[in-house]
């Protein structure tokens, strides 16, 4: 009966629970604060230039990038955009078939130990830092390309594309594998019961069912390639140039920021235009990630 008096009183544990809830909520909301903070701070540094000085037509339309020219600086990112696009495009050309193929092999064909080891290997490959990839492009791929194709320069779209492809592939593989794993086994069993062979099951049943997840994996790979910095900085040859072939050197948007930010004075036009590129990169990757997420979420809900 004595307990009855205290019945329905909020006690210390109740308040502790509420306090913890508030505390972990701060952790949760911090991610939102950080992403907004990132956008606000890069905008703050780049917006003045974007509004006052920058001619958007020149920015996106001109291939001339000479921001440090004292008399007549030029701020065209067309060539940089072409550099990023060509390297990312080539990388995807390499990474998409191979990573989807590997994912299908791991998820649908490999068994037991083989599967375990492949997964571990893929995970370890995904962990190699981008600066190491850049170094590989610089020191191993570069002479290899020069020798194999008999070209004067090996730091080219081809080099960076291959490097970026190898870099993006493990991540795409594991996301694609997740997508394949998400297809319920009863689909496979149903198809097998009808007498379909393994590959028929995969092509006619599993792939169509997983196509959204696979598309999401590809998109995330594109986002990753688009935003990669160190590897493309070191492997592209860093020449402002709209490439005519895969043997041309180029320069990427991300690499431009990495290479030039250190030389600029805080607040200068050059400094600000690099932040403007940052805003552009942020928005594009945000869109890519959002789309990928919506697509992947779409399959989970249906």
């Amino acid at each position, binding site marked *: 009966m004595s307990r009855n008096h205290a019945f329905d009183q*909020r006690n210390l544990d109740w308040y502790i629970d509420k306090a913890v809830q508030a505390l972990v909520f701060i952790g949760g909301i911090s991610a939102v604060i950080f992403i907004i903070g990132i956008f606000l701070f890069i905008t703050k540094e780049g917006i003045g230039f974007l509004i006052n000085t920058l001619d958007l037509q020149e920015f996106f339309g001109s291939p001339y990038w000479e921001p440090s020219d004292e008399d007549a600086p030029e701020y065209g990112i067309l060539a940089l955009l072409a550099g990023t696009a060509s390297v990312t495009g080539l990388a995807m050309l390499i990474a998409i078939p191979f990573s989807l193929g590997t994912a299908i092999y791991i998820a649908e064909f490999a068994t037991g130990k083989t599967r375990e080891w492949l997964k571990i290997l893929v995970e370890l490959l995904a962990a190699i830092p981008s600066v190491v990839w850049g170094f590989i492009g610089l020191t191993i791929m570069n002479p290899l390309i020069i020798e194999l194709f008999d070209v004067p320069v090996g730091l080219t779209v081809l080099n960076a594309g291959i490097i970026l492809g190898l870099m993006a592939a493990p991540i795409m593989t594991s996301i694609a594998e997740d997508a394949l794993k998400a297809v319920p086994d009863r689909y496979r069993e149903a198809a097998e019961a009808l007498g379909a062979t393994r590959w028929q099951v995969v092509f006619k049943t599993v792939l169509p069912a997983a196509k959204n997840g696979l598309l999401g994996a590809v998109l995330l790979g594109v986002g990753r390639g688009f935003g990669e910095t160190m590897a493309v900085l070191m492997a592209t040859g860093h020449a402002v140039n709209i490439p005519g072939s895969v043997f041309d050197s180029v320069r990427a948007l991300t690499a431009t920021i990495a290479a030039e930010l250190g030389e600029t004075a805080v607040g200068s036009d050059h400094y600000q235009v690099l932040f403007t590129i940052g805003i552009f990169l942020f928005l594009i990757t945000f869109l890519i990630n959002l789309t990928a997420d919506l697509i992947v979420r779409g399959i989970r809900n249906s």
Partner: protein
Amino acid sequence: MVSDTNPVKLEIQNLTIRYGGQAAISGVNLSIREHEIFGIIGPANAGKTSFLKAINRMDMFDSNMRVEGNILFNGQDVRKLRNIYALRSRIGVVFPLPVGLPMSVYDNVALSARLRGIKERAELDLIVERCLTRAALWDEVKDRLDTLGSLLSGGQQQRLTIARALSQEPELLMLDEFSIAVDPVTTMRIEDVLKELKSEMTIILVTNLVQQARRLADRTAFFLDGGCVEVAQTEALFTQQTRDPRTRDYVEGRFG
């Protein structure tokens, strides 16, 4: 037999429970008195489990579950409580699927006491031994109190769950088909304990074994298709003094 003058422990007024659009319980009125064993019988899907879930506010864990009507525990509406945890700590529940928590058997049974702030080892030892003994599990586990509760056999986990519910020293104990994973001899031992416990607490016994209700319950309610068909003194139900023919049919095993 429980006197009608015992104070009301739990008053159910016009209780309706819905999952999505589907009603699991509709318009049930009941009152359960202190120190009685209140049996609930009825076929599967009669709404018995949903009824228990509403009492200790498990609807909060299930966004699909909607509860309407009043549930008065000690005269207070459980849906207007400020501290839901205090309510739950006063109600022990045992569901048909046993859950041994992934901690030692000892910690499983000591958990509730620790949540209440009891730290002293001797006191905890006492609680653990008493509750495990009452749940007819002590002899089997006394030499291995450090094994994980989640790794015990199904029947042992069921008794562990009962021991844990008892360790709450609840005012109300709700058992939902507790004997489903327990052998008949052990079931009998636990039934004997329940009879003793009546002096300390109120017990709601949901069972699919009509004879179990007959052995234990002071009064019994018959649930069918989400409604409470009738409530009567248990002996009356089993001696053909039922008001509703469906109850008699069920008790006599003609359906269900």
